[in-house]
């Protein structure tokens, strides 16, 4: 497994250098530093996991994202905050191409998201996603939910995939539910299965789209605990959430969005104690 990972790292870095990186310099003369952390060109190739440059997205006449520019480093935990309708979910869904962006560049692990189906497939198998509504497959048992992608995408044998599923269920704390169907589990258990399902592809990045918003209050903690454990293990994570506590304690950086734009970026300490932007202050006064 470690061999495989190294090999993938090399090839990803190689491709970045040869293709995407040059393109970033040559074709698009974008100013990378904005409100975001300035990215040194040299470092961009090495430990940047997600790079977005001037990403625009329209739904018909409505501009959902305008000029999103941000970089997420390897092993970084980024929490995206903002009022509803601010484009947080749209942005996170663009990163694994559930929505297609119309302008700008999105580069994940050195691979640019274009209309190239092979790139999309590759990125999707490297990026795990957890949804607000869990979206577990109701006709499959918990174990089959988790093993589906390893068997059909990674071409693992069933015993191997089931062993993996068992260890992941152990990790999210529900090993005894393996043979049940999603409909027989509580919301919190379902969301933990969804996390295990995403982890089964051994992703390099995990995207969380409001993972606790559909849960009863007493179940939110069990999901947040799993996410914290995941953060400590060194996973790169991008989390859209309304859990201010999680943002304060776990995040390395907080990105605040409104009206499809990034308004402010900073450490949780900066963000919660001393925000610079007026709109951020207004938002915080409403939610805290």
């Amino acid at each position, binding site marked *: 497994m470690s061999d495989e990972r190294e090999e993938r790292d090399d090839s990803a870095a190689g491709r970045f250098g040869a293709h995407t990186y040059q393109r970033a310099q040559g074709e698009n003369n974008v100013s990378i530093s904005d409100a975001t952390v300035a990215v040194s060109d040299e470092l961009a190739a090495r430990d940047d996991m997600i790079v977005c440059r001037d990403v625009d997205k329209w739904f018909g006449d409505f501009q959902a994202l305008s000029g999103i520019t941000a970089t997420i480093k390897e092993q970084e935990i980024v929490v995206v905050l903002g009022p509803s309708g601010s484009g947080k979910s749209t942005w996170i869904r663009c990163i*694994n191409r*559930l929505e297609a962006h119309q302008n700008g560049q999105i580069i994940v692990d050195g691979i640019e998201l274009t209309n190239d189906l092979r790139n999309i*497939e590759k990125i*999707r*198998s490297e*990026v*795990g*996603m957890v*949804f607000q*509504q869990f*979206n*577990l*497959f*109701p*006709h499959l048992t918990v174990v089959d939910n988790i093993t*589906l*992608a390893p*068997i*059909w*995408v990674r*071409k*693992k*044998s*069933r*015993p*191997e995939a089931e062993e993996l599923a068992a260890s992941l269920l152990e990790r999210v704390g529900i090993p005894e539910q393996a043979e049940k*169907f999603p*409909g*027989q589990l509580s919301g919190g258990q379902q969301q933990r299965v*969804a996390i295990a*399902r*995403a982890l*089964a*592809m051994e992703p390099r990045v995990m995207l969380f789209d409001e993972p606790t918003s559909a849960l009863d209050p007493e179940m939110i903690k069990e999901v947040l605990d799993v996410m914290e454990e995941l953060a400590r293990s060194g996973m790169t994570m991008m989390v859209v959430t309304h859990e201010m506590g999680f943002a304060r304690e776990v995040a390395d950086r907080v990105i605040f969005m409104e009206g499809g734009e990034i308004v402010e970026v900073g450490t949780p300490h900066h963000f919660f104690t001393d925000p610079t932007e007026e709109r951020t202050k207004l938002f915080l006064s409403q939610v805290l």
Partner: protein
Amino acid sequence: MSDPLQVDRGSSLSAAGARPPFYRDATVVKWLSQVLTLALVLFALIFLASQGRSNLEAKDIETGYDFLGTALGSDLGSGIDTNPNTSGRALWVGMVNTIRLSFGGIIAATVLGVLVGVGRLSRNWIVSRASSVFVETLRNIPLLVQIILIFVVIASLPRVTIDQGPIPGWLHISNKGVSIPRVFVADGFYQWLIFLAIGAAIGWIVMRQRNRVHDETGRATYPVLSFGAVVGVFGVAGWFLHPIFGWVGAIFDFGASVIDALTPGIVQVIISVVAVAAAILWIRRFLASHRTPAGLTKLVDDDWFRIIFAAAGAVLVILFVTLGWPGLSSWIINSGRDLFEVLGDKFGDGRTGPPIDAMRPDIEQVGNFPNYGPSGLNLIQGLAAVYFGVVLYTAAFIAEVVRGGILAVPKGQSEAAQAVGLRRSTMLRRVVLPQAFRVILPPLGNQYLNLTKNTSLAIAIGYSDVVQVGQTVYNQTGKTLEVVSIWMLFYLACSLTISVVVNFFNVRMRIVER
């Protein structure tokens, strides 16, 4: 100034000990309503039967099914036997025509409907528009109009002549319909079937083994392909070797002689014993499923109704075979013996010919008029009109059912499947379609039932289905009630068969919740 809640609690406490009056006692009301319903239904049936009988007697109309054995004075347009010697045989030919029409129609309508339904959701603009036009046109025009339209279109084709093309001797198209080579079951077919059955059994074992290897190693093992290969090998081998199963016929001959040795009394006893045993088994299984972990069986009123129902059913069966229709047992003996004798012949010795054969179509001169000869597979005008009519019409509805089923799968399901990296084809096969199928199945069964019943519109253009033949029979014999009862029983049997098959899949597809 007493608290209303307090008062309430007091009164309910005092009521708990006393028995309520009988018209408020849930147990009594339940039993009474059941008994009354049963009495009402029985009374209605007896009243209708006696009224019908006295009316028929007053008009001097004889009832009975003896006409089934009498000769029919006319030929049928098409079927397995166009010149049946009795009315019963004629009705049977009509039933076979209806069954063939429905079965072939269900298969074609399903294939076409699924294609059009998926096509309507296609991202390809032309495909989705074309599918929409297909659906909206066909489902908004009455089926009868469509059948007549197709009939008229075929009638406007060139008149049939001797040597009609397009490919004389292979494909004929004319105002009489279409004629193509006929593939038919020949001499050694039934012994060849034995080979195929053995092949299917071994193929199934091989397929399971291949599946297991796939599960254990993740290698592609092509289980379905292996199954097909095994069956294919046995099919080819059996084509030449089938006469070695000539001895199977003797087994059926022996069965025929055993059945022949039975007397009606023995058959009546056997049926009675089977009925009683079935009732006892059913009640015991039912009781077992009600046993609490402590080993106690606690029955409520509904359970007693079920038990009484089962016991009464057994008694009714016994009364029916002994007193209701004593001739039934000898009929069972005769038809059973005949069936086994036919099978003994089909599987018998000396059938060395090929299992399947084919004949080319021809056109022959009948008097002054050329017509399709019997050697081709003739899709005559009437059959073609009914067949394409019901297939196109039902396909339009099935397309909507399929589209609805796919749309009923939440968008989050395909998003989640994409997010874990599944390809589009795998996503459809493993995530979307299994869930869509669950939604599609019940309305799909309805469409199959509609198709089967709609074939009765064949009467409009004179194709000999069971309704058209039945009409001929009652015009000649005057036995309208009896023919209608046969129609009803026949369509009921067809519909129940379809329902059972669809329900079988329905139960298997159910999603477990809670």
